[in-house]
């Protein structure tokens, strides 16, 4: 959720954001959001326990080898640990993929980046897509 570190840039173009998660809220508060005050976030975090929206938006489950045999995953963990982060307990399904989408002002998809493995586009790429949509 690197977007929150420079939320002012999103605010400047009048953008809104929503993050969608699928695990039990109690588990999320103990793990993914352990160091984050969710009441203080400038955007909403929506919970989709059934993952209906994940399917509707075309987000699949990865093959085990696409996640756990991917050297990039371990490079990411190593980089985070070196930066002082710590390992947290995982969720109920580590193979569920996510994705990033930017919608235009009419609710059409202007940018789509569904994950095919554990990767995310740079925040700058998402912001550029939102800027193309316009304030």
């Amino acid at each position, binding site marked *: 959720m690197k977007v929150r570190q420079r939320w002012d840039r999103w605010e400047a173009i009048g*953008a*809104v*954001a929503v993050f969608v998660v699928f695990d039990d809220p109690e588990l999320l508060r103990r793990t993914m*959001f352990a160091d984050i005050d969710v009441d203080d976030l400038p955007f909403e975090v929506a919970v989709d326990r059934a993952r209906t929206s994940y399917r509707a938006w075309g987000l699949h489950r990865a093959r085990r080898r696409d996640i756990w045999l991917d050297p990039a995953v371990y490079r990411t963990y190593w980089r985070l640990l070196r930066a002082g982060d710590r390992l947290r307990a995982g969720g109920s*399904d580590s193979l569920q993929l996510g994705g990033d989408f930017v*919608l235009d002002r009419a609710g059409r998809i202007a*940018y789509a980046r569904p994950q095919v493995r554990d990767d995310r586009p740079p925040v700058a790429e998402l912001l550029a897509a*939102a800027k193309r949509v316009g304030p």
Partner: protein
Amino acid sequence: MTTTAAAIPGGAAPALDLPTLTGGRIVSTGWYGHPVLVSFLRHAG
């Protein structure tokens, strides 16, 4: 690995109507008029 037509640029975004972590509810029609980032997260620890 394929995506549905709904996730392709130019198409209408599938509707979202979900509870939030803070006890509220989000409905995607409320976003019209703004650029919107929708980010679906993994939870891998």
